[in-house]
């Protein structure tokens, strides 16, 4: 018996990994991650750098950098009334849409969080606009806003409201696009906020009810504080989405009237793909990037704070 053990010990391979075995994890990881790494490099990081690069150049009609002009493209933009108009429209649009989307979705989620018979039906209806594409939504609203056959003014007429020049007037045009956008975005926000509501533990409400707390006390002392991370998440996402709006502008107004709805992405599109000004279009794109970056950093700051509190 002892002899056998000795033999085994003698033949046992020393338990020391060589380099090949040591890097096994690394090799598998690189292999599995490579599709993502390659795709992100080609379609996210490279084009981001290229866009920054192009923003310092004048380009030919095919998008090749032709002449280095430094910050000229940016200075040109900051000086142009058209750019100022576009920026003003972009921020005003965010102001019109973001608070409305969050508030309406929150309201709908509160309603749909009640435990009632048939509530599933309402939840599905409230989520439905998430399935609506921007093209389909914009075409439907184009019809609703139509000055002669549009039914919206007719319906408002029943409420005693005079006909509104929806897409024809430069002030109302931005409102019209905002209404379309609010409607389209409610589905997704509703879904996320409802999910957040359902994650709140029922025990809290139970004990509040035992203490005799009313609906609004529960709403402001339990629901809103505990839901605030979700609400903040939706706020930022909606904000970023509003900066990225394009399809509704393209179908409803084409940036008009008088450039009143020339939101930043539509301006990029026109600069690059209609006027072939890839340099200034890239400068606009870089500005968009920084706007979104600012919002994302705000989101991270908030998350950090949340971690501190816990």
């Amino acid at each position, binding site marked *: 018996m002892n002899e056998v053990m000795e033999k085994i010990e003698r033949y046992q391979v020393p338990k020391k990994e060589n380099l090949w075995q040591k890097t096994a994890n690394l090799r598998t990881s690189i292999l599995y991650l490579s599709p*993502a790494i390659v795709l992100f490099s080609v379609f996210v990081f490279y*084009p981001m750098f290229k866009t920054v690069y192009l923003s310092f150049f004048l380009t030919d009609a095919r998008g090749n950098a032709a002449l280095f002009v430094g910050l000229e493209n940016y200075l040109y933009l900051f000086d142009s009334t058209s750019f100022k108009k576009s920026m003003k429209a972009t921020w005003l649009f965010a102001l019109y849409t973001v608070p409305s989307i969050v508030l309406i979705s929150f309201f709908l989620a509160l309603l749909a969080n009640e435990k009632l018979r048939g509530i599933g039906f309402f939840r599905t209806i409230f989520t439905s606009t998430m399935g609506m594409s921007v093209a389909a939504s914009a075409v439907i609203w184009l019809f*609703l806003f139509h000055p002669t056959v549009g039914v919206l003014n007719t319906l408002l007429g029943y409420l005693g409201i005079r006909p509104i020049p929806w897409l024809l007037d430069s002030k109302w045009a931005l409102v019209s696009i905002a209404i379309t956008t609010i409607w389209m975005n409610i589905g997704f926000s509703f879904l*996320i906020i409802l*999910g957040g509501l359902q994650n709140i533990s029922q025990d809290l409400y139970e004990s509040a009810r035992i203490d005799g707390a009313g609906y609004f006390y529960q709403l402001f002392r339990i629901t809103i504080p505990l839901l605030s991370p979700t609400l903040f998440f939706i706020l930022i996402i909606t904000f970023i989405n509003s900066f990225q709006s394009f399809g509704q502008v393209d179908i409803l107004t084409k940036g008009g009237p008088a450039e009143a709805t020339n939101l930043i992405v539509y301006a990029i599109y026109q600069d690059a793909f209609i006027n072939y000004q890839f340099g200034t279009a890239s400068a606009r794109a870089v500005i968009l990037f920084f706007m979104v970056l600012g919002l994302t950093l705000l989101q991270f700051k908030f998350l950090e704070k949340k971690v501190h509190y816990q």
Partner: protein
Amino acid sequence: MNTGRTTLIYALLFISALILFFPILYAVSVSFMDGKDVFNRALLPSSFSFDNYKKVFSSVPLLHYLKNSFVVSSLVTIGQLTVASLAAYVFAFIPFKGRDFLFIVVLATLMIPWEATMISNFLTVQHLGWVNSYRALTIPFFASAFGIFLLRQHFKSIPYELYEAAQIEGLTRFQIFYRVVLPYSRMSLVTLGIYSFLTTWNMYLWPLLVTTNDSVRTIQIGLKQLQTVEVATEWGVVMAGVVVAILPTLILIFISQKQLQKGLTQGALK
């Protein structure tokens, strides 16, 4: 619960649902109207006919666009699921030096809006000769940081003992991925799949840029085309096109509302 409160909530639910769903209901209603009804701003069609649907399929190649949308959305869904699940598997289970850094790099892509890179991406795609091909509409979207993040969160909820047990059983890394992790996370894969399909189906700006003829044009661009061709005279036909375009995604939402809500909120908020 007292009845007064219940009645009030039901009333609010009904009114909200009616207002929110009105544009969709009305689009369906208009799709059955003739020109006279549209002109009179009727709410319901005076007679019921499928003429508009017949017309819309003959005035633009709508079936062809639908097919394109199905192909593109399915390919992107499969691509995203494959790329994201492989990456998420590494981020959840296989430790190596520099993994956390790579994960931050992936998350950093969330800060770069697609619209900020579209000019360069368009030039790339043009340079590769991909314009008017499925490649341009699908490959750039195969990697999704959101998808990787969502799946990683779900993979991390798999007990690590299960992973170790599979290792002791002698399963290779790929076998563990394929036979343990993926089946265990079926629900989150379905959620991501539905979400990818929806967002791809509804994509507008990119297909507008990279399709210059009918060959791979998607239904969304078909709608824009329809609206410019038919507008002013034939709103019924345009609405028939809209209904055809929204039907697949609406059905998907109706089937999967619960699933999406659970899957997305877990990924987005945890």
